[in-house]
């Protein structure tokens, strides 16, 4: 009987049932078959209200959406262009840096491609980059800043795995930079190969003007990182200060958006995403706690120990598994469902929980551009009105480069753990 019910729920997930409903049904059924009162699921849901860092999710997302809706993308693009545009492949590097910045603030929710794609695409094409290179670059960049603070997946991982978010924020910086450096090197290489590539000269006066133009955006990373690591504020307080700062800057200093007209709309947009994520978080807690109580991770561990003998083989296996997960599931559901199951297993194999977090998130970042269902491929296809198949082809070189970076991040833990 229970297998039929579980199979039914699984089919429901495949035909497009909302993940929160799928998780709830799994949890409710599991509790029912174990003769536990269903109100226990509600008890688990209510535990979410006790997570102190939960506030960072809505406030950082709101701040990111506010910036995306304002003219910040144009201002930051001008600044990055003035600072880096003179390099060979400079505009491509500008695209990588600017997308990483925005993804860190908008939580890799597709907003980056939607908000910046329209600006970056004509810029790259005008500089004579091929369409394939351009599409691949923007599609990949859409999730590039995922390892940088204050990215939503990092926060969610910290809440689920009970790992210090402050530590995770700093742990992702070098691996995140590594990804940007590798992709920048490829952009320089491609820039050199591209015929008639337009290169702009460096202008100090333009850099100065661009800095003045984006003067209120420049302090943002320092408010978040400086505030937290200077010991002045917690991550939760940083999210509130960032949100307030962005509202003041966007509504009163730049006057890009109106407090009465636009801000409520942005709240609606951002909270629709936040609500969808938090609901999954609430509903999956019951299920994952049940699985942990039933010692499912330990059963996975004992069966794995039969063919996996050391940490390095485990990490290889983990990467393959997570790449499949990343290509099939969205990042938020994957974190909520998979992390509680693999965390105890990884610890048994001696993998540091912070290193595991960065490996996990890098895999899922790659999942965004992995065919056939990587979400960025569909967002780009929709945004640029190109067939998904052409996006598959365009993303291949980037996929290979990201996999190389993944191997480096996985097998050189120092990159992640150097701070501790």
């Amino acid at each position: 009987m229970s297998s039929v019910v579980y199979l039914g729920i699984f089919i429901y997930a495949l035909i497009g049932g909302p993940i929160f409903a799928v998780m709830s049904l799994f949890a409710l059924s599991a509790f029912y078959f174990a003769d536990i009162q269903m109100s226990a699921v509600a008890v688990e849901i209510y535990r979410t209200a006790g997570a102190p860092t939960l506030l960072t999710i809505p406030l950082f997302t709101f701040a990111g959406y506010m910036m995306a809706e304002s003219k910040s993308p144009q201002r930051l693009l001008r600044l990055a262009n003035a600072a880096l545009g003179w390099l060979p492949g400079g505009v491509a590097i500008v695209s990588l840096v600017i997308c990483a910045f925005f993804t860190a603030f908008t939580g890799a929710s597709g907003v980056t491609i939607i908000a910046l794609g329209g600006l970056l695409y004509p810029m790259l094409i005008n500089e004579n980059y091929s369409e394939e290179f351009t599409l691949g670059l923007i599609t990949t960049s859409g999730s590039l800043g995922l390892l940088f603070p204050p990215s939503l997946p990092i926060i969610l991982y910290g809440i689920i795995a009970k790992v210090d978010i402050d530590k995770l924020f700093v742990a992702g910086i070098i691996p995140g930079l590594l990804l940007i450096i590798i992709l920048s090197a490829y952009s320089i290489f491609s820039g050199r190969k591209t015929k008639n590539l337009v290169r702009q000269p460096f202008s100090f006066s333009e850099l100065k003007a661009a800095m003045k133009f984006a003067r209120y955006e420049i302090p943002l990373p320092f408010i978040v990182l400086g505030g937290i690591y200077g010991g002045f504020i917690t991550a939760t307080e940083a999210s509130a200060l960032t949100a307030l700062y962005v509202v003041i800057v966007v509504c009163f200093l730049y006057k890009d958006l109106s407090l009465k007209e636009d801000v409520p709309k942005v709240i609606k947009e951002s909270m629709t995403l936040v609500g969808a994520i938090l609901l999954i978080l609430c509903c999956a807690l019951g299920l994952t706690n049940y699985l942990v109580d039933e010692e499912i991770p330990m059963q996975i561990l004992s069966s794995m120990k039969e063919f996996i003998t050391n940490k390095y083989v485990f990490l290889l296996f983990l990467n393959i598994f997570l790449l499949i997960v990343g290509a099939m599931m969205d990042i938020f559901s994957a974190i909520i469902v998979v992390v509680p199951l693999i965390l105890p297993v990884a610890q048994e194999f001696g993998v540091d929980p912070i290193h595991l977090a960065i490996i996990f998130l890098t895999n899922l970042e790659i999942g965004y551009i992995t065919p056939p269902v990587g979400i960025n491929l569909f967002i780009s296809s929709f945004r640029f009105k190109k067939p998904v198949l052409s996006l598959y082809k365009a993303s291949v070189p980037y996929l290979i480069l990201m996999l190389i970076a993944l191997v480096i991040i996985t097998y050189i833990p120092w990159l992640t753990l150097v701070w501790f």
Partner: protein
Amino acid sequence: MIKKLDNLLDKVSFYSIVICVAGMLLLTVLNIILRWFNTTMLWIDPLVRHLVFLSAFFGGVLATGRDNHIRIDLISKVLEKFQKEKLILWIDRIVHIVAMIATFLLTKAGLDFAKMELEFGKVAFLGIHSGALTAIIPVGMGLIFLRYLLRFLLTFSKVELDE
């Protein structure tokens, strides 16, 4: 009538979520400012956490209305390619029905929990009883259930669904 109810539910959730976000933002900033003066108000932190919890459900109602819930929509994408609109519509209705079952059961589970908490719980902060706080679950899930029901009924009418 159904569409009017759906719009009303959307508006209520929209205004509520704006209040929740403004509340959590201003209260957290107030907490930081108070700390500079070595003062703390112990009720701010739990109130903010419950505002976030509440906004999860209002956000859920909005996501339901815009069909924006996170899901694996592989099959619908394939069917769209083959232009099987009728099949997509029926799958959509099944998705709605099962989601209604899930949210109804969660409302019931939440109600049982809230009743228990009302009986055995205690005042949490600002004189608010823990039973009232746990009632966020049945109320929130109930609203999502209602939105699914309205959206399900709307799939039978030819009225264009607005955002």
